[in-house]
Structures are given as C-alpha cells and as structure tokens.
C-alpha cells in the first residue's frame, strides 16, 4: 500500500508542474542574475577599461618605440634585447632591487616576529605598544619621513654621528654609493609594524594548551618555539612573506627622496621602478618602460609561484591534519 501511494504522489506532482516550472526556473535564474551584474558593473568597467585593456596595450607597446606623441613604431623584440644585453643600467637596477628585497624583507619580518613575541607576553600595556609600533608603518610611506631619513643619514646627520661616537666611521650614507641603498633598507625595516600586527594576531590564536602540554613534557622555551610557534604560525609567515616581497619589488618613494629623484649616487639607489619612471616619463621611452613593466610582472609572478611551491614543504595548516 505504501509503495503505491509514494509512487503515485510524485508522478502527480511531476505532471502538474513539469512543463512550466522549467521555463520559469530558467527565467528565475535570469532574474536573479541581473542584480549581480548591476552590483558588479563599476568593478567590471574598471577591470576591462583600466586593467585588461591596458595590460594588452602595454604588452603591445613593449614591442614598439613610443614617445607618447608620435604613433608607436613596431620594433619587435628590440626593447627586450636592449634591456637584457645592452643596458648595464637596467642590470644595475635589477641588482639593487634584488639586494634590497633579499636584505630588507627578512630583516623586517624577523624584527616583526621578534617584537610580536615580546608583546604577546607583555600583559598590561600590550595594546599601547601594538599601536605605537604600528605608527611608522603608516607614516613611513610619506615623502616627509623619506626626507627626515635623508637628513638623518646624511653627512652630519644623527646616524653617522652616533656611529662615529661608538668608533664606526661611515660618513654620510646618502652620498656614499656603497651605503645609500641601506638607508632605504632601514626605512623599510623601520615600518615593521604592519607585519608585526598580523604576527601578533596569529600568535594569539595559538592555543595555550599546546604550550602547557609541551611544558609538562619538559620542552624548553626554544623547543616550544621551534615545535609549536613556528609550525602554527607558518601560514601567517607565508602570507607576510608573499605580501612583503611583492611590495618590496615596487619600492619607489624613499629611493626617489633619498637620491633626489635621479637614483644617485652612481645609480646606487636606482631601483627598478625608479629606472622605469626615468625611462618612460623623463626620457620618453614608453615602449622600453612598458617592456620593463612586463618583465617585472613576470619576475613577481615567477617568484610568487616559487614561494607557493616551496610553501608546501614548510607551511602547516592545522585544519588539514583533522581531515
């Protein structure tokens, strides 16, 4: 009896609703879609007009000679060839930028992690310090602070004077081709507050039970750091690392301010983006600058990819274990 009623009931439902609901369901889907596109329209216009089309155009321009006034003149791979094989200043800018990324990013992240661990155990006053350490991250990007930096590291500035007093004679950093880039490095490291705040939030999510259990098992502070803090924090380390590397490749304002805009002395602060600006907007080689931008995009893409690949071996996601 029950089988009869259950087979009959759906059949009746199907018959009464079959032909029309399909159509109205499709219409429903269509009706539900258009508001989404209205919401998205500013973003879609921006994505097409200000991102996708410009990307295609800049790729095209990178194969041309273009000075913004005359029509672009197709030169094939000439720009890339010149950049890679005939332009020592290009390689100088690559070297300076790589040196900067390799020195500044680990220093900044190390300091950020160290201070975050210090603040985590601070108890009272933690909120105050957290905010105070964060302040340079906001101010440091400004032209004002870049100018302060220039004065502090210049001949007769505070930093060479203090170093003199402890017996290290460096002279002014700003005019010294061997040291100028480290002034920019230190300005970046000074802004460690942003990754520090992210580290601190990550540290606070690690369950205290883990540390208690480890302490009961006789694990010392170092052991706890290596076996609990590092693996639990590795996703945050990875996030900060990717973010800082991508940003560092594009550093501009401090290099511009410290060198007075020309990447000096002796091109020692001619960072990649500063050279790109000089080629495109000062020397009017827009095609060359576009080619530089594309190689920057490729370099950032490759390095990000490598970071993601290697992350599989050292980034630990707690929720993966449970699955």
């Amino acid at each position, binding site marked *: 009896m029950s089988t009869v009623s259950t087979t009959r009931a759906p059949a009746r439902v199907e018959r009464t609703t079959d032909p029309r609901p399909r159509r109205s369901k499709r219409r429903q889907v269509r009706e*539900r*879609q258009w*508001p*989404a*596109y209205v*919401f*998205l329209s*500013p*973003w879609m216009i921006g*994505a097409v*007009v*200000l*991102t996708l*089309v*410009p*990307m295609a*155009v*800049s790729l095209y321009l990178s194969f041309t000679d273009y000075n*913004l006034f005359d029509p672009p003149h197709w030169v094939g791979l000439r720009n890339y060839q010149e950049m890679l094989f005939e332009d020592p200043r290009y390689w100088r800018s690559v070297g300076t930028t790589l040196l900067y990324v390799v020195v500044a990013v680990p220093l900044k992240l190390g300091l950020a992690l160290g*201070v975050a661990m*210090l603040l985590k155990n*601070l108890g009272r006053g933690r909120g105050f*310090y957290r*905010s*105070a*350490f*964060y*302040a*340079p991250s*906001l*101010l440091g990007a*400004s*032209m*004002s*602070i870049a*100018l*302060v*930096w220039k*004065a*502090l590291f210049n001949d007769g500035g*505070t930093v060479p004077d203090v170093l003199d007093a402890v017996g290290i004679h460096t002279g002014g950093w700003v005019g010294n081709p061997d040291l100028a880039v480290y002034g920019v490095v230190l300005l970046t490291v000074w802004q460690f507050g*942003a990754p520090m*705040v*992210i580290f601190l*939030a990550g540290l606070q999510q690690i369950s205290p039970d883990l540390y208690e259990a480890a302490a009961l098992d006789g694990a010392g502070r170092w052991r706890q750091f290596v076996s609990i803090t590092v693996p639990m924090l590795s996703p*945050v380390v990875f*996030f*900060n690392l990717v973010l800082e590397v*991508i940003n560092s*490749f*594009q550093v*501009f304002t401090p290099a*511009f*301010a410290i060198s007075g805009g020309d990447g000096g002395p002796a091109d020692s602060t001619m960072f990649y983006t500063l050279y790109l*600006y000089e080629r*495109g907007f000062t020397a009017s080689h827009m095609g060359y600058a*576009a080619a530089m*931008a594309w190689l*920057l*995009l490729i370099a950032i893409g490759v390095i990000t990819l490598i970071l993601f690949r290697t992350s599989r071996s050292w980034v630990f996601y707690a929720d993966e274990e449970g699955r």
Partner: protein
Amino acid sequence: MNIATKRWLPHTVAAVCLLVLLYPLAWLLATSLKPADEVVTSLDLLPSHLEWSNYTTALDGVSGVTVSRLLGNTLLIAGGAVLGNVLSCSLAAYAFARLRFRMSKVMFAFMVATLMLPHHVVLIPQYIIFNRLGLVDSFWPLILPKFLATEAFFVFLIVQFMRGLPRELEESARIDGCGPFRAYWSITLPLARPALITTAIFTFIWTWNDFFTQMIYLFAPEKFTITLALRSFVDQSSTSAYGPMFAMSVISVLPIVLFFLVFQRYLVQGMATSGLKG
C-alpha cells in the same frame, strides 16, 4: 632570573625599542622648530628656542601656492578616493559574497589575481587614456579609478568580512519581499561597517601618502598636493630652508597622525583580520 626581572625585562625592552623607533618623529618635530643656525651645527635634539617663524614661512607654501590650497587639493583627492572606494568596492564585494551569477568563480579569481599585479603594467596605457581624454593635470585620474573598484585589496577585504556575516537576516528580509538592493543598502552595509571604516581609513592614508601617481598626473603648481609641494621645496632648498621644509613636513603628516590617533583601534584590527582571513 627572579620574578621581578622576568616581569620588567620585556617592558624595558619594549620601551627602549619604542624610543629608538619614535626618534625620527621626535627629530622631525624638533627640527621644524629649530632656528636656521642650529639645524646643522647643533647636535642637541631640542632647539635652544622655538622658531615659530619656520611655520609661518611654510604656510606661505611653494611657488605662490599657499599651504591651505595644497591641503585643500589633497583633501579633495583623498575624500573623492574614500567615497569611490567605499562605494564601488562594497558593491562588487556584495555581489561576490552574496549573489549568484555566471562566471562568478572566474571573476573572483581574476579579482584576487589583480592583488599581485604591479601597478606599472597598466600605468602607461592608463596615462595614455587620461591623456587622450584631456584629463592629465586634473584630479580625475586620481579619483575616477577609485569609483571603478580598481583596488582589489579592499574588494577582497570586504568580501571576507561579508562572508562572515550571518545570512539569516538577509534571508528573512528576502522572504518579506526585500530586493537585493534594499538588502545591500539596509542590512549588509550597516553590518559591514567595520570593514567599510577600515577601507575608508586606509584609502585616506594611502592616498594622502601617495607620491608616484600624483607626480605623474599633476603639473600645475596650483593643483599640487602637499606631497608634491614638499618635493619642489626640496629641489630649491639649501640648509637654511631646512626649518621651513620640515615645518611643512609636519603639516603634511599631521592629518595622518590625527587619523591614526582617532582610528588606531580600527586600523590595527583591520590590518590583523585582513591578514588572517586570507
């Protein structure tokens, strides 16, 4: 180590770190008040007497454009950017977080990918577009892109926040006949206020600090922002103009400092959550 040192050591280390860290800011403030002859010769941080004339000189501005005009220009650009970003990024974020549409996954992936896109790749064609439109040397190239949700970071931040909000309110509103625009405006937006405030504050500070874009698009001194004026101040200055230059520097970072003091809780939390939820 006894318990007293154990408790005081981290505090001492943190305080010493803070002193070193804030020294450049103290130096900026002190130098802006130093008489010209003390800027280079004296090693003391504090000036022998306060030289307020540095500030009156700075207020006169650069090449005949007063500081109030420069600040007005900067405020207009930053204000337009804030309005544009909050509006356009929250609209796009609502669609990504709450609405269903074809290609949503592809579009979302594209949006996230643009987070990593260096600005320089689109810079020159964008410049050509604004040049063709006759908008170079106006504020439009600095404001208009913000109304088109070009800063994926904020779209992403708001999406992450909206996904964390309970759906129940919206669903019951829909049952009561509330359309998606009403739901966005009256239910989701008010709930997403922390994310919107974070977006507004960061947009304001980043636009205020921006130098590259402003330098490329603005030429006429009367359209200069305070940052650009500061730069032209540098070009023409000798050490005798140090005091006024740093007085102007103080004026230019003052809004950021005020923003920071008022909103530091939102800023720090916004930074922390945007980092973690990714």
